């Protein structure tokens, strides 16, 4: 400070000299750097990219070395324009200022949207190229996620071929269901969903809380079609969806965004992450933190008839918040130890309010912890995960019919497990083996406040499994995969009982089982597949695989009301099975145009269906049939999925896919002689025979755009394929939605987006004649730094 004062009081000519000197020193100190150094990485997984091109405009072109590093010298300017490119990745233009930094530049390239040779991990639990895996795998790429108008992670899945997707109320739905391969869209349990390789279907009902996965944290999604029980066991009947979260590739990266939209929807989101080298050891530490919240005042979902009949109807609203933190250590070249913690809470009003502060609401408090080790032990690759997911589910129910009824459902659903896979290569063979353990439990009760009843149900299931798989490169062109998995499970501590029953639940008294017998079951799941690949883009494959879904705890240990009657718990319920015979082909007919198609035939047996036990029960409004979930149906499913992808350039691409499925009950076995229902020859409910999707994305200097058109064909509403009382129709009407996303990046750091879902405002309805939100528009502003 004193020096500044002296400078201000020295004579004028001397001031000029001193000023000139300072200026000279400043210029000297900031003169151009000679060299720029850095490296190029894959943005999807942080891996280095050897051989990538780095073109420093006006100074020449270099390639990255084996470690992904580059260096360009003899520079005469502080500001440089660089063009970074690599085969299979989107080229990137960067402007750098050497005054600020001369080394340690890190450039991440996004994979192109059509990457038939991208690495996938789900199909075999090993790293494999898509076309080296004789299984149908669909990739939801970062590019597709970026260019799709969506609110939830499951929204983007409907763009993949043959995906049967249900989220009837958009962000106001407390659950979404994503199935495939002709299996009913009423239940999630027939498709396995993984989060970074860890199963997130709950043992209680097979459900997945899609809302808890922040789309901002997702890097890509792998969809493996057809049964995958040979490698993953339970739930993998129709396929496997593996959501893979982002891994940081830069020292620090923060994205923060705000959004606002239809129905007074507001949200904020922060996605941050970074890596730090630990000395010169080659080890590094990385971290990721994702935070999000959203709220909306909502809309009235109920049908006009319900609105007329019920003066207590209000808007279905929502608010949610979530945190996901992941941290890990990369050590000893190729070993990674990471831990992830999730928290999610939501509060969704279901559109009716009598006396409770928020009316009828569902509330999830979910906690998850995952510990993962991925690395090498000698020549053996190891991938092992420990996980613990707990969901505290609360539902407030209140309604007035003859009198006021208010009860709360409180359910603690927990899944704890340990998955381990080890892979070792011997010549042309790659063996993968391992074990999985899982403990699922539910401890739930319905507590009434307008009577003294409390209805309890609880149960636990342990599943143990061993699996072995051999991937054999028979020759340059033939590849065979054979695998077998053995699962065994125990159901125990099951109970269903009522305390202080009144007329509200007295009808259930005869079905109390306070101490259910222990049950055992086992499943053997083989898979064998062979492919012939005659060049890098073309192949055919043949596949046989078997899948199963275990009985869920909710069916094993809970009795209660269901639509059309009353269901009683069936602790003896066994798994259901499906065999799958499949053939597929991938072709690149002309350059940049990729075509793929799969044909499948999937007979199922022991399918779990509600079947009348021949008795009736009066639940307070007349006699209704009693159902029990039983292994009574054989089903026949066959279909075709076909897809075209055309990548005109790195900035312009198109896709179209179509699927047809035929899903029929072949043999329905009654368990009561007076059961008048015969489902043989009936179609499975909630399965569209036809699904069509087409879209494209275009990146340009003005505004980037992504457009998707999705057609969901008609679906049968009820098991008997008869006219539904509420909808007065045999089938749900087919419908088409159009989604549009526009976005633009400003000054590298700012992004403005407009999401328009259901652009044409098509109204479609669920089984209760409740209507979808129609057109849903949000705008968001994002800052990257």
């Amino acid at each position, binding site marked *: 400070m004193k020096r500044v004062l002296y400078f201000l009081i020295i004579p004028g000519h001397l001031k000029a000299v001193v000023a000139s000197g300072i200026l000279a020193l400043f210029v000297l100190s900031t003169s151009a750097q000679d060299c720029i150094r850095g490296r190029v990485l894959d943005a999807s997984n942080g891996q280095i990219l050897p051989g990538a091109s780095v073109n420093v405009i006006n100074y020449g072109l270099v390639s990255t070395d084996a470690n992904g590093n580059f260096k360009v010298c003899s520079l005469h300017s502080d500001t440089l324009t660089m063009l970074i490119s690599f085969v299979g990745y989107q080229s990137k233009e960067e402007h750098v200022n050497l005054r600020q930094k001369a080394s340690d530049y890190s450039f991440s390239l996004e994979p192109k949207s059509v990457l038939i040779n991208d690495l996938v991990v789900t199909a075999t639990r090993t790293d494999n190229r898509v076309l080296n895996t004789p299984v149908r795998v669909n990739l939801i790429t970062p590019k597709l996620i970026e260019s799709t108008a969506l609110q939830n992670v499951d929204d983007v899945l409907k763009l993949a071929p043959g995906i049967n997707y249900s989220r009837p109320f958009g962000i106001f739905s407390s659950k979404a269901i994503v199935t495939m391969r002709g299996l009913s869209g009423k239940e999630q349990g027939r498709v396995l969903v993984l989060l970074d390789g860890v199963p997130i279907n709950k043992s209680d009902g097979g459900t997945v809380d899609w809302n808890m996965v922040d789309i901002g944290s997702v890097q890509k999604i792998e969809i493996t079609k057809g049964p995958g029980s040979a490698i993953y066991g339970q739930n993998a009947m129709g396929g496997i969806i593996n959501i893979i979260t982002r891994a940081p590739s830069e020292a620090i990266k923060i994205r923060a965004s705000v959004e606002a939209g239809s129905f007074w929807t507001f949200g904020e989101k922060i996605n941050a992450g970074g890596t730090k080298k630990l000395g010169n050891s080659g080890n590094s530490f990385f971290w990721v933190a994702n935070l999000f919240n959203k709220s909306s005042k909502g809309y009235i979902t109920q049908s006009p008839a319900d609105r007329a009949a019920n003066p207590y109807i209000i808007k279905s609203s929502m608010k949610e918040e979530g945190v996901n933190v992941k941290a890990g250590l990369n050590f000893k070249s190729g070993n990674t130890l990471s831990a992830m913690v999730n928290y999610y809470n939501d509060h969704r009003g279901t559109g009716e309010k009598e*006396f409770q502060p928020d009316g009828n609401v569902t509330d999830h408090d979910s906690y998850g912890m995952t510990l993962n080790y991925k690395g090498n032990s000698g020549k053996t690759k190891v991938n092992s995960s420990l996980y613990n997911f707990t969901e505290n589910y609360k539902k407030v129910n209140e309604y007035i019919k003859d009198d*006021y009824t208010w009860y709360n459902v409180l359910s603690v659903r927990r899944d704890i497990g340990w998955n381990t896979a080890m892979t070792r290569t011997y010549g042309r063979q790659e063996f993968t083996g391992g074990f999985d353990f899982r403990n699922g439990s539910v401890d739930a009760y319905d507590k009434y406040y*307008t009577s003294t009843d409390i209805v309890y149900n609880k149960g636990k299931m342990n599943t143990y499994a061993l699996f072995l798989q051999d991937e054999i490169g028979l020759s340059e062109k033939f590849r065979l995969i054979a695998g077998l998995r053995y699962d065994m499970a125990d159901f125990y501590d099951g109970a269903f009982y009522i305390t202080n029953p*009144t007329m509200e639940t007295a009808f259930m008294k005869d079905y109390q089982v306070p101490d259910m017998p222990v049950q055992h079951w086992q499943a053997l799941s083989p898979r064998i597949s062979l492919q012939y690949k005659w060049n890098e883009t073309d192949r055919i494959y043949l596949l046989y695989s078997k899948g199963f879904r275990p009985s869920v705890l909710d069916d094993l240990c809970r009795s209660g009301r269901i639509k059309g009657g009353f269901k009683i718990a069936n602790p003896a319920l066994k798994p259901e099975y499906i065999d799958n015979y499949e053939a597929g082909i991938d072709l690149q007919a002309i350059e940049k145009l990729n075509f793929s198609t799969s044909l499948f035939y999937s007979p199922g047996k022991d399918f779990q269906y509600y079947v009348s036990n021949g008795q009736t029960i009066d639940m307070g409004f007349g006699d209704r049939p009693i159902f029990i979930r039983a292994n009574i149906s054989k089903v026949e499913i066959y279909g075709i999925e076909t897809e075209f992808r055309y990548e005109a350039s790195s900035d312009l691409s198109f896709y179209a896919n179509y699927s047809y499925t035929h899903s029929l009950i072949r043999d329905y076995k009654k368990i009561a002689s007076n059961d008048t229902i015969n489902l043989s020859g009936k179609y499975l409910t909630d399965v569209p025979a036809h699904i069509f999707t087409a879209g494209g994305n275009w990146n340009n200097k003005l505004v980037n755009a992504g457009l998707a058109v999705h057609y969901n064909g008609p679906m049968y509403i009820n098991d008997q394929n008869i006219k539904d*009382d509420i909808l007065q129709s045999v089938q749900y009407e087919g419908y088409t939605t159009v989604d549009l996303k526009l976005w633009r990046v400003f000054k590298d750091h700012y992004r403005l987006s407009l999401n328009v879902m259901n652009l044409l405002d098509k109204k479609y309805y669920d089984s209760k004649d409740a209507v979808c939100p129609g057109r849903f528009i949000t705008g968001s502003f994002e800052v990257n730094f």
Partner: protein
Amino acid sequence: MFCLLFRKTQKPQSFLKASWLSVFLGFLIFVSCSKETSEHKTTLFLKTGTGFTADGASIPVGGTIRIGVQASGSGSALTYIRIDRITAYDTLVQLDRGIYAGSDGYEADFVFSKDTSEVETWVITVMNADRVLASKSLVIKRGTGTAYGDINYFPSISLGMQSNSATEQFLDVDKGIAYTVGNLNGHEADIDMICYYYITSGLSSPTFTCPGYTAAVAYYPMLNSWQTKCTTLYDYRSTDNNLISIDQFDAAQNDSLLVTAYKPDKVSGNCKYCYTGKVVPFKTQAGKYGLIKVLRADETETGSLEVSVKVQK
């Protein structure tokens, strides 16, 4: 946040202060997170005096038992009331009702009929939203003789379905008078019955309902604006299973059959499948028992029902 706090307080004294502060904050968090365990008491009083049945009273068969209830959740809403009649042989639930009564508390009178048991204990139970119960009981003995009462008989009343406004649609069963929308004004609080037609569970259903049944507004939207909406309860089990025959209905000269036909454990404000020839036991909000004989039931929304009604005077 706590890490930041410690980083900025490096001196020992500051560290001590920070420690105390964090202990204090921790205490506050602990206190704020501790579960609220206090429960509100439920209070219950039975009305006494003229018109209300006293403990130990002797009432002849068919005589009226009138129980008046005053209850409060004492700061928590009152949500449940139940009345059981316990005899030496069985327990019959006479009333099992979810309610929502806030700070004003709950007050209601209930009317029942004495049956043939020698001694019966009536237990009245209320519960608040904290699930705290309160109970009172009355012992009632059988008096001498019988006290079956007179009835009103309305041999033919026509009621229009929801889309038949040309016919009277709103029935005051006590007086046997039916009203149209046009002449209803001022009589809303007297209406006990209305009817409509729909298809449910795949079956055609001429249906009796009442203004107090929530879903009735779907067919009669004007109910939304009514200040008083009476609830009539129909014994749907007797109706579904034809437990009362037309001959029994025709033979009834006093309220004996009306009282005994109505079983309170399977009742609703909505009674489906009321086809021609059905006999429907009911109880009005005012506590009067009755029987409806369906003389004719059209199975269209524009049709009508023709009924005979016998109801306690």
